[in-house]
């Protein structure tokens, strides 16, 4: 079960804290992006996706943007109909990851020129490219929006 997988991973890496997965879901529960930085079976992944969806959509404006999830926590923010969720360790800096999410969304916005959900649907492989430019191995990699956009345009020109 995903619970035990996550917990075993937790005990094996005692002090290490990093991103476990990044999810973009819409309100109906459809996944628009799922980036995993840990090993899971397909069923486990599906279960996790459903659980995150359940936990996050039940919250509204009067709740904080952090929610305890098994042995970890989820930092999330809602943009229009999409939930951007990052699963991190309990010792991680919540506020910093909130900034990370916002940074990521701003890049998406710039790259797709006022991004909307359909952009993410039809260009899903490009969204993964954006993620891979900004995050790697469960850590934030590049934070400069200008730099990321420059790289993305370069990559696009190669197609």
């Amino acid at each position, binding site marked *: 079960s995903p619970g035990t997988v996550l917990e075993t991973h937790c005990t094996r*890496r*005692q*002090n*290490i804290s990093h991103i476990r997965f990044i999810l973009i879901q819409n309100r109906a529960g*459809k*996944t*628009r*992006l*799922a*980036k*995993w*930085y840990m*090993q*899971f*079976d*397909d069923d486990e992944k*599906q279960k996790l996706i459903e659980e995150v969806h359940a936990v996050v959509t039940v919250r509204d404006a*009067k*709740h*904080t*943007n*952090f*929610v*305890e999830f098994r042995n970890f926590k989820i930092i999330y923010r809602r943009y229009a109909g999409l939930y951007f969720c990052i699963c991190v360790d309990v010792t991680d*800096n*919540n*506020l*910093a990851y*909130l*900034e*990370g999410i916002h*940074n990521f969304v701003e890049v998406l916005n710039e790259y797709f020129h006022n991004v909307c959900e359909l952009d993410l*649907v*039809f260009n*899903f*492989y490009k969204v*993964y*490219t954006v993620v*891979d430019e900004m995050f*790697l*191995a*469960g*850590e*934030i*990699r*590049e*934070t*400069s929006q*200008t*730099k990321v956009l420059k*790289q993305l345009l*370069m*990559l696009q020109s*190669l*197609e």
Partner: protein
Amino acid sequence: MCSCYYSSVWLHVNTGECNLASKHVPLQYLITLHWFETLFLCVFQRMPAPIRLRELIRTIRTARTQAEEREMIQKECAAIRSSFREEDNTYRCRNVAKLLYMHMLGYPAHFGQLECLKLIASQKFTDKRIGYLGAMLLLDERQDVHLLMTNCIKNDLNHSTQYVQGLALCTLGCMGSSEMCRDLAGEVEKLLKTSNSYLRKKAALCAVHVIRKVPELMEMFLPATKNLLSEKNHGVLHTSVVLLTEMCERSPDMLLHFRKLVPQLVRILKNLIMSGYSPEHDVSGISDPFLQVRILRLLRILGRSDDDSSEAMNDILAQVATNTETSKNVGNAILYETVLTIMDIKSESGLRVLAINILGRFLLNNDKNIRYVALTSLLKTVQTDHNAVQRHRSTIVDCLKDLDVSIKRRAMELSFALVNGNNIRGMMKELLYFLDSCDPEFKADCASGVFLAAEKYAPSKRWHIDTIMRVLTTAGSYVRDDSVPNLIQLITNSVEMHAYTVQRLYKALLDDISQQPLVQVSSWCIGEYGDLLVSGQCEEEEPIQVTEDEVLDVLEGLLVSNLSTPVTRGYSLTAIMKLSTRFSSVNRIKKVVSIYSSSIDVELQQRAVEYNALFKKYDHMRPALLERMPIMEKTASNGPTEIMQTNGETEPSVPDTKHLPLVTQPANQANDLLDLLGGNDVVPVIQTTLPTKPASAGGELLDLLGDLSLSGGLAPAPSVPVSQPPFLLDGLSSQPLFNDTSAAIPPMTAYSKNGLKIEFTFERANPNPNIAVITIHATNTTEADMTEFVFQAAVPKTFQLQLLSPSSNIVPALNQGSVTQVIRVLNPQKQQLRMRVKLTYTHKGSPVQDLAEVNNFPPQSWQ
């Protein structure tokens, strides 16, 4: 459509029948037609070009039901499968992309795994890109084909185009298995030293992943880290700091090695704050907050438990703390990381106070996220910096009214941690108000917290009882089971409040009999102090007028009510019985008791039968048996295993053992008949006095009484056999109720071997001086942590031992912390304390076990 027409013609020609249209067609014509037919069929039956990704997505989105979508997907999957079989390079990329999309929707896509590999091996960038994406989504470590990627990645790591190298690094860094990491670590290390900053960033984080997977390879990356921090490029700097952090967290040796980087890190941080506007990494006016946060985190790890490093970073931390803009979340993120660092390193007290004040300011912030993180951090520091946190008490209490559940919970925990003798009245008011209005999930914890706090700091007995009443009446059904015996004991010991208490409890019962803990405590009290109730002796408030019959009505009502649990019924029956010596309406009570001696509830039945026997055959003993309870001493507070002692008058002390089980039993009532006389805690008492006669309903009681020589009235306690365990005997020697004196006992080293040192510190248990409370402190001077540390102890038979749970089971290396655990030793015969200890732990991967005798206890610990 054309093919259908032609094939129908073909069919007709074949069967020799002609339809009307071609009736008069000559044979040559038919043969030509046939030729055209085959040509068309070839054209039409060959696979059409696979549809584009966009089109597939659009089509799938038009599906109106799940079933329709599934059908579309199955159709497309079949088409893709055929296309794969044709080994068509042109469309592979498109097909895999479509497959990945369908995979994202939740459909299986494993048949595309090999195709991903083929794409990776292709020379085209577009192919590689989709191939690697596919690998990251479909191929994890558990797939067999995973390893086949290794060679491709190796080649791509050395590719001439940096974007291809980037793709390879990214894939390896996200999901490379341990074998892959081992094979490719060298390539990653090479790229870490390249001058291309785009690749260096990726290589650094890829190295982090490699180290996570194969920690032994860490050494390999050490040379490359030499100049990482002198980079100007923020991105490289950022990822370098992450790499250094990972290395330091994993290896104490690396930590020591990198401590010398502290001055450099401090300088970089300073430049970040002081430097002007840097548009590339600016977020709301703050330059590269992400880098600042990571540097702060690395400083935290380096400064932990090292005075020199901590001192070197004091100034910069103070600077960041005071200069950072707090109007937006980004500034607060940096401040928060700063606070975490200050609290973790060996900072001077002024800095710590500054940190707590920042947290206090966070509590006033409109943004609930910030309030939440502040409360979480304050909770961690409240033990160590208690006074500083106290200053923000009123703000914390205000957070009890917050709308977010997690904020409320933290505020509640923090509030309880801040309660002390000075603020108890005010705090309790707020907390009781919270208890009234909070969600059910909080009520149990809040109630327990209130009881604990009240017990520790109650300004007066009356206040204490009132508080308990308030909790019982407002949250009575959420109160934990073990609070009932605790409360009963508390009430018993507050002698002057008996009348007041029973009156209030009686009135509460009249209002509401649904909350079981309240009902149980009330019935017990009425049974005990019913005489005070009817005689109207209350001093604290206006005494109520109530008759014996009214009281008995209430108690009998509990017996028959549907709301009462079996446990509650037991309480009320016993209470009724006890009133037989306090009230005059004995006949009524006799009737009730005899009715219940045929109750279906076995528990009630047994009680009733025994009480009946008491009336009939042992009536002369009844007054003594049912006498007022003596004051009970408590030696453990609120633990699940309580050592209850009696310190009572000599006369009824022995028969009281019959009562004790009834009191300590309520929550854990087993239907086992024998358990009636054997309580959890009092088993040793009963076992030695019960002779081995066959058990029979009501037989136990008689056995107990039969064993002791009570023929000439009650024998005083000293005639009880010597084999009786210490509890009873102790209670009879003269001891003041609350013994405050405890001469300081020097600590001692119990064990010191192989770097593990265990020290014992002592204190007397209050109020029983026969219990020594020993706290063990385990420290570790070696350079590796001792994990899975378990401490066990055994004592000679004349002692009794209780081990509470340890603070943790990891003894950190290099004296960076200690594991503490409390041991309570009961030593009533004042014999010399001896102990055998067994230690097990894991050190540097191998398990260690040792046995040792501890004989050097200071005399004051057992005399």
